[in-house]
């Protein structure tokens, strides 16, 4: 391998795996496990309105009553009594980058956050463990009436009523056990409101970094794109690797109003000790458009199926997602869509790569309800296995209640072609580069949906995964 490549690899590796020292002097850390007392303390610390404390306590009750999910990969390694649900830096959130504490600033600088903001983003939020440490929206964007803030500020600010109206209505705590957990201990995340007709030309981004060992991250993202408005929101996540289990049970609720458009892009690179039990959901009204772009690389176990409710006629959704499961990873991902109005359409393109015994499962669920006349849905799922010990499964689900729906499903599972590797090598390209070229090429239709910087990052992540154990 070229020296430059080795250097690049090291840099990327270090980029995600550096750990900051957490001391009691600069961090507040809740005790392990979960009870009412912990929740009251979290709520009090945030100075929340009463309804939120009630909401949390009700959610805790639901959590305690709900059974564990009975499908998908095992999460036995996750012991909730060992998870710390709340860790925060003692420094409050800053609106100026200079004011963020040095060690945290260094972390995000290594992740390229402020640089990306200067170059290509309209606003940035950076969450470190349980709380946001930095939030900023460009002045010219703020002037159009766009609101982009942390959830805590939103709860106590001029949009408090809006938060109350929408918060966990799309993903209620009763949905599943980890939605209930989220309702009880959620912390951090972003609130975005784009007023009617406002088109935000450049993306907003929130970055979530979980630094603390044995902790959970439960950020809540609530985005409302009002009628005729347009937004691209990017979410990035990463964490260094520890030997104890970490948990991510975030929740994303997206409301796309009449004629509005939202693109929600994620590049996720959790560490390989992370249980990623995340819930994302969008509700799309008449003529609205929802676009998901998703790259899942990290975590030990993932349950992730962004769901779209096409509630208004002529509404549309597309999902472009790629999952890379390496050694010790079991990633259960996919997409769900409910067609609940006429002339709605959904397109799902999913790709999965598995390597070194990794397991990638694609799960899709398409529901076309009785009143969703003349609806269309296409599901295309392709899997690439890089060796004979890895696994790839496709579990499509369809429930069609109309007789005029156009529905297509295609699944292709294949191994990387030895002949193609030989072909590339015959041009002087090393075996590992040949393989990563083929894999990047396989991922390209998804990565090209991302803004350039993120496409590059995704390619680097693929390279990094390809080089592991090779």
């Amino acid at each position, binding site marked *: 391998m070229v020296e430059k490549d080795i250097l690049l690899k090291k840099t990327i590796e270090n980029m995600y795996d550096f750990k900051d020292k957490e001391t009691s002097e600069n961090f507040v850390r809740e005790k392990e496990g979960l009870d009412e007392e912990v929740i009251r303390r979290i709520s009090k610390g945030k100075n929340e309105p009463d309804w939120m404390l009630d909401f949390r306590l009700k959610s805790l009750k639901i959590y305690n009553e709900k059974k564990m999910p009975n499908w998908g990969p095992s999460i036995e390694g996750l012991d909730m009594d060992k998870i710390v649900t709340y860790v925060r830096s003692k420094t409050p959130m800053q609106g100026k980058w200079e004011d963020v504490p040095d060690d945290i600033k260094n972390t995000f600088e290594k992740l390229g956050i402020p640089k990306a903001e200067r170059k290509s983003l309209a606003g940035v939020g950076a969450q470190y463990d349980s709380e946001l440490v930095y939030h900023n929206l460009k002045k010219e964007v703020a002037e159009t009436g766009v609101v982009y803030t942390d959830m805590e500020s939103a709860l106590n600010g001029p949009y408090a009523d809006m938060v109350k109206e929408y918060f966990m209505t799309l993903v209620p705590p009763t949905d599943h056990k980890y939605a209930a957990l989220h309702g009880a201990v959620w912390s951090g995340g972003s609130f975005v409101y784009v007023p009617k007709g406002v088109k935000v030309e450049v993306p907003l981004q929130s970055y979530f970094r979980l630094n603390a060992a044995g902790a959970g991250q439960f950020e809540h993202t609530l985005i409302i794109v009002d009628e005729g408005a347009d937004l691209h929101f990017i979410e990035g996540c990463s964490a260094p690797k520890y030997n104890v289990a970490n948990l991510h049970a975030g929740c994303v609720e997206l409301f796309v109003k009449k004629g509005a458009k939202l693109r929600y892009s994620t590049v996720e690179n959790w560490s390989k000790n992370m249980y990623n039990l995340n819930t994302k959901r969008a509700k799309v009204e008449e003529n609205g458009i929802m676009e998901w772009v998703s790259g899942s690389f990290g975590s030990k176990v993932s349950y992730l199926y962004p769901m779209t409710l096409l509630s208004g006629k002529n509404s549309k959704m597309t999902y472009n997602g790629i999952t890379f499961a390496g050694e010790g990873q079991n990633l259960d991902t996919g997409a769900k869509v409910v067609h609940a109005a006429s002339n709605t359409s959904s397109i799902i393109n999913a790709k999965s790569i598995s390597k070194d015994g990794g397991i990638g499962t694609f799960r899709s669920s398409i529901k076309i309800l009785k009143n969703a006349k003349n609806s269309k849905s296409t599901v295309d799922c392709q899997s690439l296995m890089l060796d004979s010990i890895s696994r790839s499964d496709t579990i499509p689900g369809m429930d069609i209640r109309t007789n005029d729906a156009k529905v297509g499903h295609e699944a292709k599972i294949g191994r990387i072609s030895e002949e193609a590797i*030989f072909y590339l*090598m015959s*041009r002087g*390209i090393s075996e590992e580069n040949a393989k990563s070229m083929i894999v*990047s*090429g396989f991922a*390209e239709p998804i990565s090209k949906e991302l803004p350039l910087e993120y496409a590059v990052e995704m390619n680097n992540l693929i390279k990094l995964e390809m080089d592991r154990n090779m």
Partner: protein
Amino acid sequence: MINNSLLKINNLKVNVEDKNILKGINLDIKPGETHVIMGPNGAGKSTLGYSIMGNPRYEVTEGNISLEGEDITTDSTDKRARKGIFLSFQNPLEVAGISLGSFIKNAIHEQTQKPIKLFAMRKELNKNMELLDMDEKYADRDLNVGFSGGEKKKAEILQMLMLNPKLAILDETDSGLDVDAVRTVSKGIKEFQNKEDSALLIITHSTKILESLHVDYTHILVDGKIVHTGDASLVEEINENGFERFLTA
């Protein structure tokens, strides 16, 4: 005069999936020479090409291959390529997600390990594409994906011209091409032949592609062995009489 060979193959025996295909090949190619391998289907012509390039499916059980006096029998395919061997595939593989142009750039970079002068490279690429009567747009299309048979072969010759190897093996480059395409492709081969010291090993079972090319040696391969070696006139003879006389020999 100890060794002015470019490629020297000595008693090469090769198995494919435990079946013996090449049964003792000897071949000596000097810089600048063009050799032609002809023979009936199943004689082992393509196996010879793959073996020289080092396809791991082709197992050398005896003998050796050396390039410029250096034994390369156990070298990996990429190493052989970097030492100056090129194989034009009979069925080039389709690789999605990487364009022909950037693939060539990558390959040149891996071979030379030097920074690439992009502008000069693009210029040379365009010049060669023009020679091969290829639309420039092909440089931005995914490598071989959706290319017609003819375009795939042209893309192979384009890669050869850009990578500029010491020895190019052309495996049935003319198969499946119409008359015009054969003419165009052979223009590209001619261009390569005119470069100083560039050697060619042309595997073919037809003679169309050889018409405008200079040929130094012709070898007849039958059942894993070279049964006869002659000069360019042997091509003519095969053209008229076929392989009959070598099969019964």
